[in-house]
């Protein structure tokens, strides 16, 4: 069983402290976990700290996975190299090591991930010809082609249309379920979170202020504290929890 736990994790950019004392109980693999928080709350910093791109105090504890089993997908989607989609995914697979030759198994892995994320038709297209949403899907395929056991994705659906958001989150949920991987997504759309993510971590003031089953974390009180927004949770006609926004709550929100 793969899990990820944080013990008093900190990180700073220069002299500015972004994270201090971020602690959470082990997040288990097999489902999607959301990381929510206001802009500049430190979501990307936390991801980069977990991925080892930033140093700082505290312990990132991985169970059932080695550091090289972890993949972090940054938010930026600016890919302009003269490469086809297919080549760019091969490239991601080959960073793990191996020579210039490609085995049939490696090509099969590339084909598989392209199918999973609805990119099969784009395989031979050049990266610069893609739309923003298509690039985002390609970068998800790049992140998952090596079958990482721990996946951190920074707003993986921000450039996608409504249907693709649904489709990609569903594909990510299936990936987590099939591989038992820990998949943590930084998301802004709380309706997506409620629909797709079993557990949620709430980040504010450089700390994790709540963690647990999504509906227990995303209470109207917590949403007001995180975003300064009054809201309530209702059910859609198919039974999914939905957040209805009533308006600004008029109280200072957590930074």
């Amino acid at each position, binding site marked *: 069983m793969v899990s990820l736990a944080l013990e008093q994790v900190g990180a700073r950019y220069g002299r500015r402290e972004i994270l201090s004392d971020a602690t959470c109980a082990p997040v288990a693999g097999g489902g999607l976990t959301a990381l929510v928080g206001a802009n500049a709350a430190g979501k990307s910093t936390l991801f980069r700290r977990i991925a080892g791109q930033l140093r700082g105090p505290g312990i990132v504890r991985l169970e059932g996975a080695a550091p*090289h089993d972890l993949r972090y997908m*940054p938010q930026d989607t600016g*890919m302009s*190299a003269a*490469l086809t989609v297919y080549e760019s995914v091969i*490239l991601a697979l080959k*960073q793990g090591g191996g020579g210039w030759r490609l085995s*049939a198994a490696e090509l099969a892995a590339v084909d598989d991930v392209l199918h999973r994320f609805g990119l099969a038709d784009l395989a*031979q297209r050049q990266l610069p010809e893609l739309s923003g949403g298509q690039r985002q899907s390609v970068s998800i395929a*790049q992140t998952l082609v090596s079958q990482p056991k721990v996946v951190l994705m920074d707003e993986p659906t921000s450039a996608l249309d409504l249907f693709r958001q649904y489709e990609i989150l569903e594909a990510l949920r299936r990936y987590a379920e099939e591989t038992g991987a820990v998949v943590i997504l930084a998301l802004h759309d709380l309706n997506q979170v409620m629909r797709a993510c079993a557990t949620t971590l709430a980040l504010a003031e450089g700390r994790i202020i709540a963690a647990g089953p999504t509906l227990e974390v995303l209470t109207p009180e917590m949403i007001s504290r995180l975003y300064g927004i009054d809201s309530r949770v209702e059910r859609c006609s198919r039974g999914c929890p939905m957040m209805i926004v009533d308006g600004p709550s008029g109280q200072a929100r957590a930074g």
Partner: protein
Amino acid sequence: MTSLSTDAIPHAQSYRGLVARRLAILVGLAAVLVLSVAVDVSLGPARYALGDVLRTIVAPGAADLQMRVVIWDIRMPMALLAVTVGASLSLAGAQMQTILANPLASPFTLGLSAAASFGAALAMVLGVAIFPAAVGLMVPINAFAMAMAASLLIFGLSTLRGVTVETIVLLGIALVFSFNAALALLQYFASDQALSAVVFWTMGSLTKATWGKVAITAAILALCTPLFARRAWALTAIRLGEARAAAMGVPVRRLRLEALVLVSVLAAVPVSFVGTIGFIGIVGPHVARLLLGEDQRFFLPGAMLSGAVILSATSVLSKALLPGAVLPIGIITALVGVPFFAALILTKGRKAW
């Protein structure tokens, strides 16, 4: 290759096709290069039949002395120096563009050739030898020393915290202007004779080719190419953007510094031998990128081959355009190369930048 499993996967199959096409393009480029070198050797002020030239190359002992000297001691070193210099400058430009994420980057954008010209002019105008032990070779040695000094400066600045690729490019451009101003100052005070020597040097020329220079440039290529080849996947990943490459586990900063060192040597040595042939460092990589894409397994040999082909073909043109005279090669590369290059990027542009 297990055809059975790839049959089931159409995209893998078309990818194999793409790889085969690219290998064919590389072989084609190599064939064009061989042809161009053959024509290059057969051309010159003394007119020999192509058959005689080839016989002299294959069996030098059987040829008459004059022809042997012309072919083996004059034309062959020139033709082969065009190949090694073209390949070195193009490879240097290719990796510079890769690590600085800038289509205009080349060793020349970073001030290497301006520094080399200044070093050469120091020798020609003031007779100053940076290494007094080798006065006979003071022009190339001065040029090399100044080019390396310029790249060490860039390298040193790049290791500072918070220096981005944009900063590096801007610093390089500042170096270009500084060395050009220093060069102009030297030229202003130069004698007529020294002035014409400086001007001729900055035009770039292969006429001072020797087997020794061919060997040195070839050895440097042989040393640097495997070091880049080992990093092929990481270098390709850098083109997806720094953040993404870092997320894939590429040590971006270290790779950039390593590449900068290799590129400096790759560019400084040829420039000190042949003067300023800056254009190759920009065009060679772009031609390779258009033909082969940016997978470094193909882009790396492709950039070297296209640079070599361009400079070799330029050498042919420099002899063929004005019968009996050899035009400075730096002029031809720009005059003939620019329209060709413009046509190429306008018609085949893939919006890669």
